[in-house]
């Protein structure tokens, strides 16, 4: 059992390390994603002309829109980068199971999206004069939970749409409606944390976020073999 667990984790981490190494060398997805996040932050400044109090009210929403839009660029590349030289077929033919491949890619995407978020969060705070909330650790926890929801659904749907003609268009169209429960939970919690509101009344959003992550992680792991292999 321990050997199997080690083997599962070992191969999963190998896939994640491969993706991260390839991204660190090329930096194509992260660069595009960070630039896109900055562009969205710029566009928001034209869309809204708000007082500081109003900004604190909608900061959670703005942040998660940036994260979701920028994250999609990374997720889109996740499986698409394996199409060159038929790498995806080689990966599927290797002794790595579908679940390991999926989980490895999930971990790599998760790290990359968190990096993009860690860059965009201070930029957002500077651009919109939002003070760093006192409960920064909790905000970071919400970021970790919300991002896992985006990553797990996004990676599975990235695998589903990898061979489609309009995959760049299909992925966001399919995942954003799916992600609504996680995004709403993360937005509400972030709003409360930035605004300094009472957290106890909003624990339902925390539970929704956790339930969403648990349910869709299990479901994705169970169904990914069907998606990738058939």
């Amino acid at each position, binding site marked *: 059992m321990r050997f199997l667990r080690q083997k599962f984790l070992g191969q999963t981490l190998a896939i994640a390390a491969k993706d991260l190494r390839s991204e660190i060398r090329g930096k194509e997805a992260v660069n595009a994603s960070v630039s896109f996040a900055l562009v969205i932050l710029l566009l928001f400044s034209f869309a809204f002309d708000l007082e500081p109090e109003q900004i604190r009210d909608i900061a959670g929403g703005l942040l998660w829109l940036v994260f979701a839009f920028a994250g999609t660029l990374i997720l889109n590349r996740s499986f698409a980068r394996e199409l060159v030289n038929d790498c995806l077929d080689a990966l599927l033919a290797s002794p790595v199971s579908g679940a390991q491949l999926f989980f490895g890619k999930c971990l790599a995407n998760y790290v990359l999206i968190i990096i993009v978020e860690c860059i965009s969060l201070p930029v957002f705070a500077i651009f919109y004069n939002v003070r760093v909330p006192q409960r920064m650790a909790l905000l970071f926890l919400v970021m970790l939970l919300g991002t896992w929801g985006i990553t797990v659904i996004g990676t599975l749907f990235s695998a*589903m749409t990898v061979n*489609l003609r*309009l995959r760049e268009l*299909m992925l966001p169209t*399919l995942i954003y409606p799916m992600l609504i*429960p996680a995004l709403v939970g993360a937005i509400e919690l972030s709003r409360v944390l930035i605004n300094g509101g009472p957290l106890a009344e909003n624990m339902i959003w925390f539970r929704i976020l956790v339930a969403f992550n648990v349910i*869709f992680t299990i*479901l994705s792991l169970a169904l990914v073999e*069907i998606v990738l292999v058939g």
Partner: protein
Amino acid sequence: MRLKIILTLSAVAGLILTWNLSRIFLQVPDEANQGAIFRIIYFHVPAAITSFVGFYLAMFSAIGYLVTKDLRFDSVAASVNEVSLAFASITLCTGSIWGRIIWGIWWTWDPRLTSFFVCWLIYVGYFMLRRAIDDPTARARLSAVLSIFACVDIVLVWKSIEWFRTQHPGPVLEIRGGGGMAPGMEAPLCWNFLALLMLATALILIRTRQESTKLEIDALRRHANAF
């Protein structure tokens, strides 16, 4: 045989709907607070329930495909989802008309309305995905997975009435513990539900036949192209 079932179901559904319409408009009195517009509930709620029932049936059919790899299950799943999406559209439209009269607005971002709209969008995505894939087995496989994901999302929709404070009217049916509707007013609702369910079944049977024929034609075309 299939044609006979379709005709019988359609005829019985038509008869029930006609009989029910006369009851709804001539016998059932106006609701004390809402007036005549409340009658839209007789179509809004049965259409919503029919669409939900359909989405779940489609999920079971999709699971059936994943277990057996029989494309007939996929045809059924696609047909059921298509008819359910039509009923979901009816729910959104009738709800919007009711909202205009009672709330004074066509739409509000109330959690349950939003959730229903999200569900509708997910199934629009389902058909976008189906259209984008040419290979029948890949199409069946991926849309089956999407159908399962979508149904899990529907659970969040269904539970949202308990989770969120909402300005949507609370449950009024006896079966959902509402108890807010007089039995005389509730009976036509149940009959309408039965009629819409029969109508949906007839439509699904027609669509399933079309889907199977399409698969046969596609197979023949591929066969012809192979030579």
